[in-house]
């Protein structure tokens, strides 16, 4: 069993990353809530987009990382890639669920309904089901090697599904309802959004690093339990 370890230099570094992520996220929220002017069309509720859009961006980024790590694992069979994939998937579920919740919070005042078959939101919901499937496979497979191999397959097959789902839902929706309202592109809006996307991305990398270290420790415990 290979002995994946985390170099000491990396451990101190994560506190700095955590701090930077925290500061950026706080400032992002402050700017989004108070400083940037409300949008002419949607009014105050448009501020939700400053968290909804970054969360969605992270949900898909996290699953892209799962996909890349899954491919790497199947090629090199190095347990570290599997542990990064698992960590990214768990964080991905957090962001996906958050995106859906924020989406309905935004939908209620804008369209008067908690759930709409808007292509982006529907695709995010399907992405959540893929994540749940991925994590279910991991929890139901006892042998670590098998768990890594099968979840890698689910990560790859699942990832290929996302664009097709988005395409098919967009076509399907265009048969029944005009596309959802376009977002305003005022410079203030764009900068605030970019700041929050950066903040969320930093949070993602911090959480990935921390979750990976837990995965390493738990894998070590599992290996030791098997030694007995």
């Amino acid at each position, binding site marked *: 069993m290979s002995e*994946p370890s985390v170099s000491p230099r990396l451990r101190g570094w994560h506190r700095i990353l955590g701090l930077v992520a925290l500061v950026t996220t706080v400032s992002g*929220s402050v700017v989004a*809530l108070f400083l940037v002017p409300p949008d002419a069309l949607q009014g105050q509720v448009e501020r939700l987009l400053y968290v909804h859009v970054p969360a969605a961006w992270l949900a898909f980024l996290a699953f892209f990382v799962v996909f890349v790590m899954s491919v790497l694992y199947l090629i090199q069979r190095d347990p570290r890639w599997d542990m990064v994939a698992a960590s990214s998937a768990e964080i991905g579920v957090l962001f996906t669920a958050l995106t859906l919740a*924020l989406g309905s*919070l*935004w939908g209620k005042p804008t369209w008067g309904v908690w759930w709409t078959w808007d292509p982006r939101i529907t695709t995010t919901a399907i992405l959540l089901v893929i994540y749940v499937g991925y994590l279910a496979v991991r929890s139901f497979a006892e042998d670590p090697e098998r768990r890594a191999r099968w979840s890698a397959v689910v990560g790859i097959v699942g990832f290929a599904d996302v664009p097709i789902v988005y395409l098919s839902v967009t076509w399907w929706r265009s048969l029944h309802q005009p596309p959802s309202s376009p977002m305003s592109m005022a410079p203030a809006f764009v900068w605030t959004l970019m700041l929050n996307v950066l903040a969320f991305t930093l949070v993602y990398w911090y959480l990935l690093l*921390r979750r990976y*270290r837990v995965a390493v*420790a738990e894998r070590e415990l599992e290996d030791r339990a098997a030694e007995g």
Partner: protein
Amino acid sequence: MSYVWAGYALTWIAMAWFVWRLERRARDAARRLQRTGPGVDAPAASPR
């Protein structure tokens, strides 16, 4: 506006909860690693 507050509160609570749960898991794992002998990351522990 209440929806906006709810949205931001939810975002912060979700992230805080995830970090808290993560730190707890990290502590548990580190403790169990110590108890089952010197580990990769854990400081050298006295043998049980």
